[in-house]
């Protein structure tokens, strides 16, 4: 494929997540790492093939982008639809959507930590790769593995109890929800809360122990500063479902606050690169490179002034101590942030389930096409997600733009793997442990492209070591 062909494909408006990744590490004449690049070479095409469809179909089509965060897509999408209709969801419909969204976040964070990342902390980065997975954890620490699996089950059961399906649910509709929550199902979900809280706290103790024992590695692991963006509530509290955006700089100064997500194009720009289907988004006022920002659990905790719930707030204060009041830049702290957030999610789910209005049958308001354009935004497990639709007067989509969390973390993921590669790769002698550390830098971000291999805890990944003349010296493949 020549360069012209590549350019042609790259110009197409594509959604570029999930699936296979490739990392190229560029060495200089001395054999030192000069650069590392993270390639996502999949073409999804959602933005293109959704053109011509009815906007009301989008809350069902777009969740198919991902099997881990489908509800976030559905919610961002339904908010865009509601903007098109000029409609507010019903109170109970809003509560139910919020609850389902929390369930997905709990499930996704449980998967990321217990299934994918805990093998590194519990078994060691250099342990036998054949056992360094959830099966290996289940053999050595059966109780922890079981708890992790059950935490994920709890998250998915929230969706199932409301809509009848665990993953690609139906029923998130403009104006609220299509299905109510029965009293029986509300009680069944409440039973889970104590166990879920305990499991998240177990996870927090595992990560804290690891951070204490490996302080040097944790602090030096891909720790270059960046900007952060996340959703916050009216008082600056961490928010996932419905809030405004906040940008902070490397020092923690607030660059933008209470920014309406509908104005995202004023503050976020994207640029394509030659070697990946993932675009490079950046904070527009600071320009390319200087404006690289991160999203996701670490970013959300960095931008938040406080957490919404008691136990999570206690952990949040400890988290803030790491940065001495400034943002925590170490990529490794994504894991810690993810668990603090999961704790907050479980507590918030408890509060929602205790609200008598949650079982009301007043679940949906109704509207028709009123505005040509709609923008929806929410915090997916991996970061801020935007759906932007333009329609013709009959409600048919003429333009779709999806700005996905993994895409926004892309510049930082590249920066992180470069840092990790510089730290651990010397010359062309590549050890398996090095591959795992580079992989783990990517795993910190828990990108959507790892969806394809969540079951086995490994990504299908290829690492190439290339000399100054572009010759491949060493190649390791996985998947």
């Amino acid at each position, binding site marked *: 494929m020549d360069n012209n062909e590549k350019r042609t494909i790259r110009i197409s408006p594509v959604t570029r997540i999930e699936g296979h990744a490739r990392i190229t590490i560029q060495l200089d004449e001395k054999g030192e790492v000069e650069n590392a690049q993270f390639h996502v070479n999949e073409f999804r095409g959602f933005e293109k093939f959704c053109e011509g469809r009815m906007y009301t179909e989008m809350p*069902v089509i777009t969740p198919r982008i991902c099997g881990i965060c489908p509800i976030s897509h559905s919610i961002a999408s339904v908010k865009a639809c509601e903007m098109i209709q000029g409609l507010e969801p019903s109170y109970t419909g809003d509560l139910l959507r919020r609850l389902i969204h929390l369930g997905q976040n709990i499930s996704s964070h449980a998967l990321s930590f217990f299934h994918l990342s805990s093998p590194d902390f519990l078994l060691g980065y250099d342990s036998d790769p054949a056992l360094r997975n959830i099966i290996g954890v289940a053999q050595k620490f059966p109780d922890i593995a079981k708890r992790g699996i059950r935490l994920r089950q709890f998250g998915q059961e929230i969706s199932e109890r409301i809509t009848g399906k665990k993953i690609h649910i139906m029923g998130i509709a403009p104006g609220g929800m*299509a299905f109510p929550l029965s009293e029986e199902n509300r009680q069944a979900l409440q039973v889970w809360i104590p166990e879920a809280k305990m499991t998240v706290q177990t996870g927090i103790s595992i990560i804290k122990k690891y951070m204490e024992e490996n302080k040097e590695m944790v602090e030096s692991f891909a720790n270059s500063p960046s900007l952060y963006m996340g959703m916050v509530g009216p008082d600056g509290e961490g928010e996932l479902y419905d809030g405004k955006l906040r940008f902070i700089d490397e020092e923690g100064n607030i660059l933008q606050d209470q920014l309406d997500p509908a104005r995202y194009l004023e503050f976020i720009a994207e640029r394509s690169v030659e070697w990946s289907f993932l675009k490079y988004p950046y904070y527009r006022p600071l320009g390319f490179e200087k404006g690289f920002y991160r999203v996701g659990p670490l970013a959300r905790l960095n931008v938040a002034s406080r957490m919404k719930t008691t136990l999570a707030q206690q952990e949040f204060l400890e988290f803030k101590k790491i940065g001495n009041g400034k943002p925590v830049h170490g990529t490794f702290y994504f894991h810690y942030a993810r668990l603090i957030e999961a704790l907050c999610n479980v507590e918030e789910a408890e509060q929602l389930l205790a609200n008598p209005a949650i079982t009301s049958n007043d679940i949906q308001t109704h509207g028709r096409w009123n505005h040509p354009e709609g923008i929806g935004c929410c915090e997916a497990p991996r970061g801020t997600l935007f759906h932007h639709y333009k329609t013709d007067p009959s409600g048919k989509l003429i333009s779709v733009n999806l700005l996905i969390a993994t895409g926004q973390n892309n510049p930082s993921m590249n920066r992180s793997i470069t840092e990790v590669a510089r730290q651990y790769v010397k010359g062309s002698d590549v050890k398996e442990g090095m591959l795992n550390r580079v992989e783990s830098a990517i795993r910190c971000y828990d990108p959507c492209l790892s969806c394809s291999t969540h079951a086995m805890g490994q990504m299908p990944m290829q690492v190439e070591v290339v000399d100054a003349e572009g010759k491949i010296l060493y190649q390791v493949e996985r998947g």
Partner: protein
Amino acid sequence: MTTITIQVNGKQLATEPDKTILEVCRANDIEILTMCHLKGVMDVGACRLCLVEIEGINKLLSACTTKVAANMVIRTDTERIKKYQRITTELFFAERNHVCSVCVANGKCELQQLGYKVGMDHIRYPFLYPKCELDSSHAWYVIDHNRCIMCTRCVRVCNEVEGAHNWDVMNRGTQVRVISDFNSPWGESVTCTSCGKCVHACPTGAIWPKAIVQGQLEKKPGIINELVEKRKMKL
């Protein structure tokens, strides 16, 4: 009233001569698969799912358009018939762009149910992936030709029950399409009364109300026959 006797799957049945094989079988709880049949409107034998074997006739005949005759020996359950039903179902799916997972009719679709009934676990024919348009110009309803199986139930109900004849059919073969008026956007139709009968008649997610999302679609094809019967009543 004349009574005749026919045999279906080895069972003797007494019936009237002006009935179709489909009517007799359904009245006697003998299952025959259909897609284009809609009680209350004329049968056209378009879908070819209701094919039956009749002793003495070499070719298969459609049960919805073939009248019973005295001493007719009919089989509805042979391997040959099942094979053809499976082929027909697969061809429905291969001809247009059916994606159940994102379809508004998911879980409420007669075509989807048919797939389950004939045990369709895969499709052996190459998909045609035709470029079909979605017409959302009507204020309340949408027609998506990607999901149309050309059963023409909408055409017949519009013509025979509503009397509007907004819907008709153009072209032949894979190019065949349901059209509104003389192939104009549905929203510009001068004949459509916006009654919604075509929405209820449509067996798939091809015609649906705009405000509805997946999980909310409720089609009531039974109301068509109810209307027809009520109109026959003398007040």
